[in-house]
């Protein structure tokens, strides 16, 4: 089943610096991701995978090429509209330092809505909390949570505003294998049961295997784009 493309990039080029010292991080990347997809972007150090994600998420402006997120062309958007996009349509999960240390888990999760001045959809919120499995940790501060728990809070936060797409940058990079598995399973569930789209950058093959599709970059170009084997039950 082919769903509509939720994020697509066409001829994306990102160059840093001038002349002799110029570095080409992305060398003409064209890719699109469908709604309801769980995709992993892989590649060695310096392959441009992080840069690709930054451009797709509107965190960085490409030198040339276009990015469309949920039918909105990112090029030419001013800061105000980019900000609105981040608020309403895009969710983020970082490798570390996802949460504000002075707020509780619950407050962190609701932060995007507080910023937008919106109230949470109670049913969605409860479902999210159940799925993430943090009901008894909501009043704790990040310093009182383990690394794995912090990342799960981050996932909940990314999902709370029901974004069109969730970008995750090395979400398991700082976690032990048990916590990693928990977080990945959570992301999987959010795609399967909650209908989200997740695009994850990772260098960990085991993490990538949880996804439906792996896009591999080398030297700023896509060298491989394959479906993963369905998990054997």
């Amino acid at each position, binding site marked *: 089943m082919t769903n509509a493309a939720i994020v697509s990039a066409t001829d994306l080029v990102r160059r840093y610096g001038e002349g002799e010292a110029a570095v080409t991080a992305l060398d003409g990347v064209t890719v699109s991701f469908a709604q309801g997809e769980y995709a992993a972007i892989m590649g060695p150090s310096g392959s441009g995978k*992080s840069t690709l994600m*930054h451009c797709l998420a509107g*965190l*960085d402006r490409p030198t040339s090429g276009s990015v469309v997120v949920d039918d909105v062309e990112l090029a030419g958007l001013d*800061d*105000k509209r980019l*900000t*609105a*996009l*981040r*608020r*309403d349509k895009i969710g*983020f999960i*970082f*490798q*570390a*330092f*996802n949460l*504000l*240390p*002075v*707020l509780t888990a619950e*407050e962190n999760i609701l*932060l*995007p809505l*507080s*910023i*937008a001045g919106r109230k949470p959809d109670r049913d969605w919120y409860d479902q999210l909390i159940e799925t993430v499995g943090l009901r008894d940790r909501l009043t704790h501060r990040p310093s009182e949570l383990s690394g794995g728990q912090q990342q799960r809070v981050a996932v909940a*936060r990314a999902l709370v505003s029901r974004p069109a797409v969730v970008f995750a*940058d090395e979400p398991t990079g700082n976690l032990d294998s048990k916590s990693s598995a928990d977080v990945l399973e959570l992301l999987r569930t959010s795609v399967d049961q909650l209908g989200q789209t997740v695009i994850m950058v990772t260098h960990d093959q085991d993490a990538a295997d949880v996804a439906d599709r792996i896009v591999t970059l080398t030297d700023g170009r896509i060298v491989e784009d394959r479906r993963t084997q369905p998990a054997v039950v």
Partner: protein
Amino acid sequence: MLKLSLRSFGARKLRVALTLIAVALGVALISGTYILTDTINKSFDNIFTTASKGVDVSITPRDAIDDATQDGTAVSTIPASFLREVERQPGVAKAVGTIDTSNVALFKENGDRIGGGGGAPTQLSSDTPAPFSAVTYEEGRAPTGMGEMAVLEQTAESEDLKIGDTLKVVGAGPQTELKLVGIGKFGGVSSIGGFTLIITSLEQAQELADQHDSFSSILVAGDENVTPAELRDELRRLQPPTPVNVRTGQQQADQNTADIREALGFLTTALLVFAGIALFVGAFIIFNTFSITVAQRMREFALLRTLGASRRQVMGQVIFEGLLIGLIGSVLGLLLGLVLAPGLRGLFKAIGADLPSEGTVVEPRTIIVSLVVGTLVTLLSGLAPAIRATRVPPVAALREGAVIPHGRGARFITPGGAILAVLGVAALAAGLFGGAGIELVGLGAGLVFIGIALLSPKLVPPLAGSIGRMFPGVVGQLARENSVRQPGRTAVTASALVVGVTLVAFVSIFAQGLKATIAEAVDTAARPGSLIVQNSALGFPLPSAVATGLEQVDGVTSVSSVRFSVSRVDGVGRTAVTSVSPTLPDVFDTQWDQGDNALLRDLGRDTAVITKSWSDSHDVKVGDELALTTPTGEHLRLRVTGITDDNSGVFAPITVSNELAEQAFGERQDAIVFAGTNPADEAAVKARVDQLLEQQFPIAEALTVQEFKDQQSGQVNQILALFYVLLSLSVIVSLFGIVNTLVLSIYERTRELGMLRAIGTSRRQVRRMIRYEAVITALIGATIGIVMGLVFGIAVTIALEDEGLVLSIPVAQLIVLLILGGLAGVLAAVAPARRASRLNVLESLAYE
């Protein structure tokens, strides 16, 4: 968002506290000033109202020129005949004349002076019958007839006086012994500020003040069916022999209160200037703290931006925090002002200005100004960092080491600083040399400070390098490099100290110049062997009998006296007038622009000499005629015969003869008396003069030229000390700034410090490193401050060269200032250094 701000505060308690103190101290000085002056005004108000309670109408003499005399009383008095005329009016139930003068001194039987000596004045007031008198007697009774006197409880207590004691009073007349018959309360209060009040009967007062046919004022009480206003109007229709003011009792009280308020206005303004300085310094601290905090919270802001917070929301956060700190700090400052006000009062009392302040008056104005100013300053200081916070790129949340890009304006900081500094210098020059006014000087100084502050990051590397060279070893090297790492931050911290140091340096240089000028002028003018005789209550005059008495002393070769008055020239303004006796050239060598000492002998009744600066500014030459109006209302025409060019301070713009002063100006008392002696006999003659004064004129003191110079020097030093104390507040604020910056920079370098310790740096070495950094920062501030102080001091001295100001640099004091700056750094580093040395190595290394 509100929650976020409040929670952030909780996490940064120490830093917030230090910033709060910076705001609070400046605001405290504002609120303390207002509380103090409002309280003093209210106290005087109460005193005057009490004094006029039983008085329906008050008649006081009106001088042609206000404040003509040194002691503030009117030159004119009301002839006694007028009292009789007033008594005859229908509607007048009772009328009395009073004698009030502050030209008195009170001594114990053993010769010790009570009051005076530069403190609150001594006042002689004649006793008035009911309903006029506000004095009630707990012990004894009111004085009657001759030979009796009363005082208030405060005086009796502090001087240990009892009913029956003998006291000596010296007024314009001869010294008199009086018996203490009453100890009383004024309006129920045991003292009036620090005033020493002497109450005697009317006849005794007339004798003491040598004023037998006239009164200082007339108090009238009307009968029941006449209101004070009606009585006043009735009495106004009379024709008094000399000009008078006729007011109701309440009006008189209001007038007195208004006069005091005007006089105090100067004090309020002066203190508020110091408050402004403290707040200015506080602004630097707040700016710095907010800048550092924004830099530290970069990831947090970036995170918020990735979550969709708009730039405005991020800026709103920082501004809201600024608002909160401003408000809380202002409230703290307001409360602190309550404590500071009595402190300020004590300070002024210490230099001899003992003002009454019963109770504590907090007007709504004080609260509003404190809160508004404190909050506004905080907000404005935090504005630039707030705007900076909006420039955090969202991607900074992902990466370490991301920096906030410089705004478009960053390139303009250095040239902007240079421009501001130049503009400031121009404004200063215009204010000082172009006569454009003192506000321009203040503005210019402010611009120069800000300009230098903007330029200072460029100064930090070379200064840190050279100052830091004195610190040995690797630790010293690290300290130097840390100071230079973020020159902007070091510069702003140091700049806060610059303000205080510049002012201290400038004031020291100015005072030194003043002392040198006085010394030089006195040395030039006073002939060897001259003795200077003045009232030991400085500023008050001497009865003319002193000069007469001195003439009789064996060994005194010549006696000359000088008097002070005022005049109106061509009917406008107030021009000070000096009058001299013809013998002045015997003891005083005047410097002349045109003319010579002989002119002073021949002043007579129709000539005058003027000073060079007055001649230049008013375009008056030798041979011109001056049209003067005197305080007693006489109109004179005097011919100018010479122009003096003298820096001694004795000569006012216009100088006339004593003869003329007595006759036409009503000035019967001497300000200073010079007694010439043969230098070889000076010591012996002085001994005899001292004896004479002790026996007959205890209010006078005789000084040699050296002693006089020392006394003047001492007075300048007193004011200087006052300035130092008031400036110290600003310096304390800037010290907090250094502490704040250190704490923040340690927090930022936690991992680095952990690494240093892990590779073997000892705790002590870490402490030393922090201490050296603090000292470098402090000394950078002190150095720039001293240089600027020198520049300002020299500029002002050159501007005042025409007035005779001499340049004298107190090198030793400036060196001490520099050393103190270094010590300040050491002090500021104590707590942060200890904190840094106590960091747990492992935790620090894992610090995120």
